């Protein structure tokens, strides 16, 4: 609701704290606190993942090295580049986690490092821009049809009877 146009929950929380201070005093303050607390309690509830379609979580090594998993947003990049740039020119395979990306390769100008080098895009020292995943999230392509199935993928009988 409050997030409809990109206002994050923490921003909403900050606004509420401001309200709390604004209403200082007496029973009004108490009721403000009740509202505030119930709001905060709601924000703490566990949330089902509902990330943007085609966001890729890459976590072959990150967790083990004490970093948050990397999250690659397809939507953001496809507004700026055609698939061909990454999947033909730069050789990204069509497989989440299948490219075995490491920081050594990135600073060598491969994979993300072909662009995140301070020339085409911001440089690698911005660790938190890529390493933004919830710790422990497995490698995946988020929101895929397979992930959303209710039962495991249907396997056909093979050749239909003639």
């Amino acid at each position, binding site marked *: *609701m*409050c997030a*409809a*146009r*990109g*206002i*994050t929950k*923490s921003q909403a929380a900050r606004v509420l704290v401001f*309200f709390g201070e604004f*209403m200082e005093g007496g029973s*009004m303050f108490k009721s403000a606190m*009740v*509202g*505030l607390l*119930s*709001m905060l309690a*709601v924000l703490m*509830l*566990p*949330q*089902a*993942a*509902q*990330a*943007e*379609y*085609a*966001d890729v*979580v890459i976590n072959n090594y990150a967790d083990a090295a004490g970093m*948050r998993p990397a*999250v690659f947003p*397809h*939507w953001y990049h*496809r*507004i*700026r*580049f*055609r*698939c*061909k*740039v990454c999947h*033909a020119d*730069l050789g990204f395979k*069509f497989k989440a986690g299948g490219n075995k990306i490491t920081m050594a390769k990135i600073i060598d100008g491969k994979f993300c490092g072909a*662009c995140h080098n301070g020339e*085409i895009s911001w440089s690698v020292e911005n*660790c*938190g*821009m890529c390493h*933004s*995943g*919830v710790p422990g*999230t497995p490698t995946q392509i988020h*929101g*895929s*049809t*397979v992930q*959303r199935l209710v039962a495991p993928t249907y*396997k*056909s009988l093979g050749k239909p009877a003639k």
Partner: protein
Amino acid sequence: MKTKYFFLSVLAITALLVVGFNAQAAQAPMKEVKSAKGKVSGANIFNRLLKKDKQRNAPPAEDGIHDPANDGTHVLQPPLIAYDGLPTTEFGNYVDWVKSLDDGLLKPRYDRFDPTVEPLVMDLDIVREVRASMPDVVFPHKPHTQWLHCSNCHPKIFIPQRNANVISMSAILLGQKCGVCHGKVSFPITTKSCTKCHSKPKPADWKPPKSEASLKNPWR
């Protein structure tokens, strides 16, 4: 004074709405319902398996895979801001990427450095007859070559020869053939997207072939 009470009630109502909304959306754990007639199984909830998106195109900090405790997460762009003004669809990113390109609303680079390089577009439709009652499949090279390179598909995913490839819905759902991209990054497979691929209507006199078991059925 009055404004303060007004704020308070707005606050309380908002909180209540959020609580109600979340409680409804979060998969309620099974609980036993006590009634006058004794204990009843909590399993008989209306939707046992259907999961709906609580919110389309959620901003990163609320999308469940980005960590809100990471400061960088709050610098990332919320998708809805970027999608403003683009044609919409009912699935995937809820953006019609093909139309956005055709209408010149987006100009993604075809070359990493040079924004003026034009893609190598080929306009060739391949019709694949479908054995079932679904409309036949038309594979259009045009939207594909606007985004991709021939080598993304040929020869690893498809032999470049009409009907040389065995394609089925099961293979697609297993992530092969068209399913290498569709259902992952390009538009997904949902009830609302079937006719994007299945776009050529069957002849008026077309009837589904009968299965052998039905033809041989002695009780028919």
